């Protein structure tokens, strides 16, 4: 009985963490390489979900194909955003804040006007539920877990093992120094934004299957993504794993002991204390 709850909770923690990690991954990537807090990440995530929905449900093509197309389309959107909205303001935090917040408003309004605000859901990518001795996991969550894990691994491998990835790391550590090595910084910024946005699109599509789609679905997820990245520490992609696990653990276990709004408060207090002890986050570089 108790052990059932405990086992289910462990599964909940893992599943929720993978959701969080998937959402925060692209956000962390942009923060690390471009050094910008892309508040619009959650809006891009929402757009990704809607594109996948439109393709899979309205147009009616294969679901995984629409996930892929959504990824590519949002990746291209990322290229556009980087060129027009991010690049001119990379070194000006105030203006980046305003631009990305403006993007949220505009993207939400665009979806609200074009698709409408009726709540939708993308059909399950992996229908069915996996059960073993009192613990159950839905196929979609398992898929998110796997895809989240694979993507995290892929992003880390991409960064560590490819030339482009190495250049991304170099820029994140010293962007002027990187330019002097002949690294085409703008190209790397563009690639990073495209990857970050594509990751958001994957997250949005999967979340559209697990939860639901609405133009405002990103509002809470944005806060979660910021929480994870700050916990992980600015400049750490691998840290997203730990940040996501911590937040997932808090959000999945606290409701068992503390009900309702107090859950939020407890979780936030724990995070604030963690941050005051280590302002740079768990894997951040320096303050």
């Amino acid at each position: 009985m108790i052990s059932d709850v405990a086992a289910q909770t462990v599964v909940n923690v893992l599943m929720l963490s993978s959701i969080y990690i998937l959402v925060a991954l692209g956000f962390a990537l942009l923060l690390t390489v471009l050094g910008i807090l892309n508040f619009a990440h959650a809006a891009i995530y929402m757009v990704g979900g809607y594109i996948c929905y439109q393709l899979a449900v309205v147009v009616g093509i294969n679901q995984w194909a629409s996930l892929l197309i959504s990824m590519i389309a949002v990746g291209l959107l990322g290229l556009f955003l980087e060129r027009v909205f991010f690049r001119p303001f990379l070194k000006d935090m105030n203006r980046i804040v305003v631009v990305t917040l403006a993007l949220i408003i505009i993207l939400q309004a665009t979806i609200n006007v074009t698709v409408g605000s009726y709540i939708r859901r993308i059909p399950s990518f992996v229908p069915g539920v996996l059960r073993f001795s009192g613990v159950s996991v839905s196929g979609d969550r398992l898929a998110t877990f796997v895809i989240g894990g694979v993507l995290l691994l892929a992003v880390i491998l991409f960064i560590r093992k490819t030339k482009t990835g190495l250049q991304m790391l170099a820029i994140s550590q010293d962007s002027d120094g990187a330019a002097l090595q002949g690294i085409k910084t703008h190209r790397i910024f563009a690639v990073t934004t495209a990857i970050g946005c594509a990751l958001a699109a994957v997250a949005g599509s999967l979340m559209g299957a697990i939860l639901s789609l609405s133009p405002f679905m990103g509002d809470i997820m944005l806060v979660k993504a910021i929480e994870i990245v700050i916990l992980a520490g600015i400049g750490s992609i691998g840290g997203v794993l730990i940040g996501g696990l911590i937040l997932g653990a808090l959000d999945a276990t606290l409701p068992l002991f503390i009900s309702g709004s107090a859950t939020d408060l407890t979780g936030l207090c724990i995070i604030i204390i963690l941050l005051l002890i280590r302002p740079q986050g768990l894997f951040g570089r320096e303050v």
Partner: protein
Amino acid sequence: MVAGEHAPSGGRNWIKTVAYAGLIILLFLLPLFVDSVYYLHTFIITLIYTIAACSLRTILISGQLSIAHAAFMGLGAYVSSIFARELNWTPWLTIPLGGVSAMVVGVLAGYPLTRVRAIYFSMVSLFVGLAIVALMGVFQKYTGGDIGLIGIPPLPSITIPGLPTINFLSSKIPYYYFFLLLTVFCLMILHSLENSRIGMSWKAIAQSYLVASSVGINEAGFRVLALAVGCFFAGIAGAGYAHYNMVLTRSSFGFLSSVNLLIYVLVGGTGSFFGPIIGTTVLVIVPEIFRWLKTFAPFVFGGIMLLVVFFMPQGIAGLFEQVKTKFLHFQERKKPRDVS
């Protein structure tokens, strides 16, 4: 010493004073021209948010970009309403109390927050804001939770012998004057502080905390002071808002609201005291004008933000500065001269 006091333009100061006085008189006469209660309401909301945005800028000039300001506004609002509702205290007392309680929490949060600077400060402040809003959700017995708190008493009527009683429920005009006076009062204090030694120390810390502490400026102390002052006026604004609106929901003080306040300041321009005033005025009133666009209305709000960010690097207030520079043909303050 006051910034400007040692500026050589005594003549222009006179013009400035007249311009401000004229503007304030115009604002006082506004109800004579505007008969729509709805527009008055919009102006009142603008005034309230002007106080909040200006107080946010006070924190900002000390180098602290806070993303918790709406939460402090909410704190003042709830404290004031709870004391007025539960203990029947008069709002004249609870409004300052709201300010003080926001200030106290600001100081309590502020001391640990001085450990972190720049973007890390912003991030931790974000969590502090979220935690304050979560706190409101926990004490729903007093705050009403997400559904909201109603039955907040309005401002009590004022009776001055020999004059007709001012009843705040009768129309929005008394409220308009109350908030206009409150705004003028708060802005005067904030302006006075900014242009005093304290304000200079805040700006000094923002420019280089290392140099500031090398000349004996207590970095932590002044940063907390900025938070205290900023939060106090946010609390006042929030408390005033509560007794005007007479209903509160905590969702009005969440992350997005704090971000909205920040947008008012950034769009208006951080470089000038009038930035947040202009920003708030534009961003509250213009979307109201475009209300008829319904679902398309958010494009106006986002559009203004993009326009400002692309064409006005220093915000709308900075635009005036740009225009002025252009008209004065880059007249420099004074060219450097050889020392020896």
